């Protein structure tokens, strides 16, 4: 079934490419809708009792010598991200019906291929499958930006490609290193495997904290670029701004989640010891990203760039919740992935709709659009509020849980090493989000009416054989149809977040307890081989207590894991 899910978009892509220009859009829409249906079937068949297990597994041997398998399987985290992808793709395609007029066939085919690659990432159970899909997303995206983007698209596409490719090559090195180490170790006995579960278990159980640290660094190189974390975020505004609407939507809604998903799937479970040590460092980067990105948003004059930088700020919360290593924080992080996908994706769609009408992204060109486009304005305000994190809408749940998770991280009951100060400082991002998004609303939606000079637009129409059908001033039924499902999803997730939080709880609990166990085991090791200077611990509980940061004091939580690392080094 999962294989079918991956093949449908690919088949659609081929069909779209082969079909005549006129039917391309409809075909692409149908294909992605079938994908959506199939993913719903999968969601229905999914066994939520064992949400933490990899379900619907399938495996095809590929290259035995190296243990390569085309193996797929999903747990509930993968499932929700797959649903996000299959939910947004048809809407994105529907939203691009009139926006893309030239080479439309290839455009929709690339989108379908992109969907397949993204689904592959979420469904992969094999490292190489994961990595191939992860990297393969670059190619369709590259073409979407390079061919269909706006003025500065050449630079944007190259930056996008090289930036992320450089990062992920290092990630690949890290992953290959883990596989190699496994193969060398007594557990692996010379057999290669790229099975994610095996390697994760090996890495978390048998690698030293220092080794894990290097693996973590390698993984972070690729994933942090993708997320993007400060300071490797500068490809994002460029790519977002230049990409066509559909590209921006997919980029913001799903592609960025590949980074957070990678951190979730690999960085935390593979390196439980290292992540606690370096979580404060990463958290500082997240917080800088949150505040830095938000302040930059506030001075933008380009609507799309503002939303692009808001992703830098928002994803900081997402990663912060993840590395808090509390079940609340990680739940919040996963919820944030979904919610950011919905609200930022929708905002890009909204911006795309006015861009399609007036062909400018400059804030100075617009003012008071609410007067002539009340329906559009209502939707835009709605998604802005969802993005600001208004309780009752989806954005709040993720943001609040991430912050709560960070706040209670390191209070003794959790393996995390963050604490209230991190949450408090990150919280200023909430204020800044309100500032820059309402600044956007105030400039573009409200105020005295001012429309851009449409002369340029008219000129385009004349010079264009596939002249875009002129759109009415306010939204068409099709455009409303694009936005309504997202708005409904925002309300549902805001009012009944249980539909999302309940299924994802099990794998998250598993992960948190695995991290705790890794620390317990590690502490036990430490005690066994403790140098004479250290007081011997009496029992396991005491060992646990000494290994886990108990103090609420931020300074000591900061130091303790690194002390741990040092002691560990001595112990070797």
């Amino acid at each position, binding site marked *: 079934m999962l294989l079918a899910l991956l093949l449908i978009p690919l088949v659609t892509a081929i069909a779209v490419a082969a079909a005549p220009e006129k039917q391309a859009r409809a075909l692409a829409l149908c294909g992605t809708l079938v994908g959506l249906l199939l993913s719903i079937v999968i969601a229905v068949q999914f066994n939520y009792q064992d949400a933490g297990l990899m379900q619907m597994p399938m495996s095809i041997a590929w290259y035995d010598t190296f243990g390569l398998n085309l193996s797929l399987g999903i747990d509930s985290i993968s499932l929700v991200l797959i649903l996000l992808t299959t939910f947004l793709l048809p809407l994105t395609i529907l939203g691009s019906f009139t926006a893309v007029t030239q080479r439309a066939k290839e455009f929709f085919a690339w989108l379908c291929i992109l969907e397949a690659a993204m689904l592959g990432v979420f469904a992969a159970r094999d490292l190489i499958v994961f990595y191939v899909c992860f990297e393969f997303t670059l190619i369709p995206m590259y073409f979407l930006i390079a061919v269909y983007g706006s003025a500065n698209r050449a630079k944007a596409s190259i930056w996008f490609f090289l930036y992320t490719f450089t990062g992920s090559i290092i990630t690949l090195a890290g992953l290959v*290193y883990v596989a190699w180490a496994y193969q060398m170790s007594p557990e692996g006995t010379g057999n290669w495997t790229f099975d994610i579960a095996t390697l994760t278990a090996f890495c978390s159980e048998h690698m030293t904290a220092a080794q894990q640290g*290097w693996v973590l660094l390698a993984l972070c190189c690729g994933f942090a670029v993708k997320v993007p974390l400060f300071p490797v975020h500068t490809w994002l505004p460029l790519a977002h701004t230049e990409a066509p609407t559909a590209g921006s939507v997919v980029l913001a809604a799903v592609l960025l989640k590949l980074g957070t998903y990678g951190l979730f799937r690999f960085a935390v479970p593979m390196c439980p010891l290292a992540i606690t040590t370096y979580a404060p460092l990463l958290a500082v980067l997240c917080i800088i990203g949150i505040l830095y990105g938000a302040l930059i948003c506030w001075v933008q004059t380009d609507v799309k760039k503002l939303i692009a930088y808001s992703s830098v700020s928002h994803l900081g919360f997402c990663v912060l919740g993840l590395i808090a290593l*509390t079940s609340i924080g990680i739940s919040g992080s996963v919820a944030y992935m979904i919610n950011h996908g919905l609200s930022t994706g929708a905002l890009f769609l909204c911006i795309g709709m006015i861009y399609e009408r007036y062909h400018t992204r400059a804030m100075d060109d617009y003012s008071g659009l609410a007067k002539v486009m009340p329906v559009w304005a209502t939707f835009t305000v709605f998604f802005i509020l969802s993005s600001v994190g208004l*309780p009752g809408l989806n954005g709040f749940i993720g943001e609040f849980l991430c912050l709560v998770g960070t706040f*209670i991280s390191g209070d003794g009951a959790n393996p995390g090493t963050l604490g209230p100060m991190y949450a408090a400082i990150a919280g200023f991002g909430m204020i800044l989000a309100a500032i820059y998004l309402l600044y956007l609303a105030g400039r573009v939606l409200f105020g005295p009416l001012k429309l851009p000079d449409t002369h340029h637009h008219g000129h385009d129409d004349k010079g264009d054989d596939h002249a875009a059908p002129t759109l009415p001033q306010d939204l068409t039924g099709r455009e409303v149809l694009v936005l309504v499902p997202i708005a409904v999803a925002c309300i549902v997730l805001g009012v009944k*977040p249980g539909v999302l939080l309940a299924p994802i*709880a099990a794998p998250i609990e598993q992960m948190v307890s695995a991290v705790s166990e890794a620390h317990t085991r590690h502490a036990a090791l430490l005690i066994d081989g403790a140098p004479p200077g250290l007081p011997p611990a009496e029992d396991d509980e005491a060992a646990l207590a000494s290994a886990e940061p108990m103090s609420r004091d931020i300074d000591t939580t900061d130091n303790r894991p690194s002390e741990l690392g040092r002691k560990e080094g001595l112990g070797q």
Partner: protein
Amino acid sequence: MTLESMQPMLSELSVLLVPATAHGGGAASHGAAAVSEAIAAGPWFAMFIPLFPLLAAVVCGLFAFTRRYDPKRSKIPGWCCVLGLLLSFVTSVAVISRIGHDTLQVTIFEWIASGSLQADFAFYLDPLTSIMLLVVTGISTLVALYASEYMSGDRGYARFFAFIGMFVFAMTCLILADNLVLLYLGWEGVGLCSYLLIGFYYEKPSAVAAAKKAFIVNRIGDLGFALGIMLTYMEFGTVEFAPLFQALSGHSPESVSGSVQIIPFLLMLGAFGKSAQLPLYVWLPDAMEGPTPVSALIHAATMVTAGVYMIARLAPLFVLSPYALPTVAWIGGLTALFAATIGMAQYDMKRIFAYSTVSQLGYMFMGIGVLSATGAVFHLFTHAFFKALLFLGSGAVMHGFAGQLDIRRISGLRKVKGWGVVTWTMLVGCLALAGFPFLSGFFSKDTILAQAFVTPGYGFTILGFMGLFTALLTAYYTFRLFFRVFLGPQRYEPGDEHHADDDGGHGHEAEHFHPHAPGWAINLVLTILALGAAFSGYVGVFGGEEHGWFGGMMHASTGNAVTESLAASHGADGHAAGEAAGFWADPHKWMMAVSAVIGLVGILIAWYFHLLNRQAADRLKERVRPIAVLLENKWYVDEGYDILIRKPLRMAGYVFYLIGDTIIINGLVALGGAIPRLIGSTIKPMQRGILHGYGLGMAAGLCAVLAIMWWLIQVGVT
């Protein structure tokens, strides 16, 4: 007002957190009541209290998007909204009759459940909720009725009522919430509606700016609130009121950790933002850009009192820090005085009342801070009537005179035909605000001020005198407005606002201008509110032992049980002493006389300068010109915030964007990109576009990275 009911409480705070279920006899039965383990289930139909306004909002919202709906002709959305709010009010009354003096709980559905964090859509019903429900649903119904006339002909008629319905939904969620997260939902929800309604005339840049300011300043407070919720959860493992109060029982400031004592200070920030206290009050005066019914409902009667409600509700948390409530008191007292000084020098009717609202909210905070939660909520209750009345009266003037609000340009309205009801009801409202004897504001303000002289320590006596001085200023600025606008020679200029329903009937020019007298809906609402402003104070006098029916209700709520007993444990029981030593020993008695005199003096000063001898006022202003300018410019606080906070942050944004991102990071990236290119140009011959060559290169590069990593790991391990 027999006073022996407050006997010195010997019992510790621990047992006082759960409200007494029965209030009667005046014996010390309350407080010491047994801790009830389970809270009784409340009536299920309580869910309709927020549901009806929400439905009304949805219906009005659908009207707003219906192309065929003509806002010039039909008032259907207005009536839908009035009906929805009225039904909500009726439901509230039914629920309130069930609550009595008990505490009930209703769970509607499960909302957030993650890990051990549980926050349901559930209601916590106690007498404090009852009082707030009465105020919110009652006043909002009246205001909606008023607005059905006031807003008629506006293009956004349906949109307006959709927002009002949403507001009442959020506000009732706020006061019904049984956990901090739902309270926060209502809290942000009312903030949103406030944002949307302040910016209702979205084509006016000033309205858009005011709306944005309101939302952002509130967000600053809300961050504190959110962090307070998180810290509460971290310390107590729950955000629901009932288990929280249970967990708090048995604690005193000595027995809790330092971080618990931080919680009230964080929560306080939220309250100061929402209720416009120093230093976060700046948004409220600007919020007057919204339509006047909004100013009356949201920015005077209901939303801005949410902070007072929150502190009253969470009083058991606030008493755990010995400095929390005194801080609240001092902030409140200072805000009251500060805002009153600004109110004295403004010329815009709505702005005067806005500063007056800030000032009166300051009184409420002072009341709760000096351990009279009863006084605070009592003042909240009476203030809702008279301030709504004053705003709606100003709105009627504004409506009739094409947006004219300047008290220098309008005079002697009493004599204009059709303005009798407005004049008389405004008089009642002004008297109530000025603390004129035997009107509602008189009783409630006295309760607070007297308590300031009763509770010892923390300089509360100074605060009491400050409060009295503020009362003088209040009486002065209120009647400055009244004497200028409603009495004196008849003279008026129209404002610059072309009201949508003018239809060319009366134009801009002063010579053709005919004021447009209010219709039945406006007059009816003003009359009802005037009755409330005149008589609502008596619920705090009759019908119960101490502070009447009102005191009885408050006593049975979470807010007061704690503060009362804390006051008692301070030995702050002025009443017993009062009985022994006569009139002057009991502030609750002499305060009535003193404040009555002060109110009258304030009115007399205003009478002299603004009715009898208006030139004298101008001369006096010339004498104290620097002070007058300072006050007219609101102490330059907005300008200060702009220079100290807004500008530096924006500058930081530019620096980050232009230097951080564009030059430093992108520069480094470009540099990184240039190195391979340099190398590439030296080994160019190797690149011939043959695929396996590139593949080989990539594999070699990968090996190199692996080798480096392997080496690093060796170094790292050993």
